[in-house]
């Protein structure tokens, strides 16, 4: 084999590339990746391209067979719509509040669980339960617990002297209820990520800091947080994307698309496409969502340099 082979074994010094094994050809790595790539192409890249095309047509139930190409018409209509901006604002609130609590609760619990503590194995198991239960069951259960009259949450609130909250009848409260549900759902992921990150931090850093007389909070700010960043940054991007696109919880807690005050952008896409059959317009909505997330993800990763880790 000649020297222009680009496929070689990994741990080689940069300049001296050679094949360990004659059977490894230049195409070997591509053959390993091919199956995964085909699936991705079929179900992600194709729909992405098709979605962008769709967003420039007026496809609906009536024009399903031969949609007209209308260029950026859907986008113009979308940005003129006052409801779009309101929904966008609500989505931002939804995402920030959720991710903030996911990360703070998760990180806080992880710091506690990373200490020497009798029985922490059992505590950890109990704390990841929300991650293990299927999401739709969680949402349905919380819907039951949020019931104005018979739900556990209102009964509890009344027991400790508050008045009942109209969770499911007042749309604003429904939205708060959905946020509570989603916070409950999401913190174990951040907890496990943080826990993994914490365990990989060398104990010697803390011992040295202790000798220098650094307080617990100083140690957290100057050792824990910076060293957790490479683990947390991709997790926060993923968490933000997942929360931004959280359809299940809102749909189930609100019991459908009843009121605009409980909707976020993703539920709006779903409603436009599968309730009103306005496929072209819905596709424009989803392209906008994708661009928002892509820009956010890229800037966030760049700011925190999370992708530096990709060798």
């Amino acid at each position: 084999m000649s020297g222009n082979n680009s496929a070689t074994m990994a741990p080689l010094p940069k300049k001296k590339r050679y094949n360990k094994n004659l059977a490894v050809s230049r195409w070997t790595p591509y053959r390993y990746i091919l199956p995964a790539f085909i699936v991705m192409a079929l179900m992600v890249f194709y729909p992405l391209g098709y979605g962008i095309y769709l967003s420039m047509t007026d496809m609906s139930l009536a024009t399903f067979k031969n949609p007209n190409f209308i260029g950026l018409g859907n986008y113009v209509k979308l940005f003129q719509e006052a409801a779009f901006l309101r929904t966008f604002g609500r989505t931002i609130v939804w995402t920030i509040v959720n991710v903030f609590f996911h990360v703070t609760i998760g990180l806080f619990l992880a710091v506690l669980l990373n200490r020497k503590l009798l029985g922490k194995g059992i505590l950890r198991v109990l704390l990841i339960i929300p991650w293990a239960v299927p999401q739709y069951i969680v949402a349905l259960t919380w819907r039951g617990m949020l019931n104005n009259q018979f739900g556990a949450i209102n009964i509890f609130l009344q027991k400790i002297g508050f008045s009942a909250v109209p969770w499911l009848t007042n749309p604003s409260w429904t939205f708060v209820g959905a946020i509570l549900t989603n916070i409950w759902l999401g913190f174990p992921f951040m907890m496990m990520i943080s826990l993994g990150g914490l365990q990989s931090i060398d104990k010697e850093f803390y011992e040295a800091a202790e000798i220098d007389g650094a307080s617990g909070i100083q140690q957290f700010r100057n050792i824990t947080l910076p060293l957790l960043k490479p683990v947390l940054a991709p997790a926060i991007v993923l968490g933000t994307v997942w929360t931004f696109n959280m359809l299940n919880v809102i749909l189930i807690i609100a019991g459908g698309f009843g009121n605009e005050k409980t909707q976020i952008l993703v539920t709006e896409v779903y409603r436009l496409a599968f309730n009103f059959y306005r496929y072209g317009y819905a596709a424009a909505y989803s392209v906008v969502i994708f661009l928002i997330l892509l820009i956010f993800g890229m800037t966030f990763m760049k700011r925190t340099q999370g992708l530096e880790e990709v060798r």
Partner: protein
Amino acid sequence: MENNQVRFRDSFKNRHFERNDSWLKIILIYLLLLIMCVVTVYPMLNILSVALRPADNLFQMNLQIVPDNYTLENFRRAIFEIDLLLWIRNSLIISILTAVIAVCFSASAGYAFSRYRFAGRKTGMMMFLVTQMFPGPMLLLPMYILLVKLGLVNQFLGLLVPYTATAVPFSVWMMKGYFDTIPKSLEESAYIDGASPFMTFYRIILPLAKPALAITFLFGFMSAWSEYIVAKVILTKPEVLTLPVGLVSMQGQFNTQWGVYSAAALITSIPVVILFISLSRYLVGGLTLGGVKG
């Protein structure tokens, strides 16, 4: 004597807790963790409580977990009177297939990303990461139209492909992270003994990656087992419904089905919770490696 007791107490404390923590601090930590545990466990107990209530007493106004006149009637009805077993069968078929395919595809792709240097490697890895940014409905709509045109609506295959596609990217990153931790010298010595690259991968590396394979299987299985939106759009015929679609369809507003629904929800979630928890000790390692080592 007294001295001995003090020493025993101290050694007990040092063995099980941080050396510098006061008892007050330890109690405070436990208190916080226990409160959070109550918060995480309670909704599950709430399902149990509803499932145990007799049909004429579903709406009780207290926080008791086990009702006074508890009954297993709801569990009996969940198993025999609704299509629960059919939904479980459908979901099992789809979930196991999804998990197996996801494991095969992501293990081989992850291995290539970890072991070989080739043109397009970085781009390829980024592509798998960026797929996570595509909003579900964005894919759902074109995918749905594609499946309609291919005639795959109401077919398991129509679910299998999107499910595999959602499970693969995250798994590729996880598998790659795990392979990175396996020393390359193992393969080199196998090559010297004349093993082909594939045999080396299959016989030597894969068996070493069992924890990561287990986690990938778990993720694939769980994502299919609890997926609701895609299934709701693609499946409409009663005989192909999966668990999530079936169960959500049961739960309208508060009605007498609520108890049966709760029993069914418990039956379907307890096995996954146990599976998840028993594999969770691999989880910390698996996720970190994927994150830290890139």
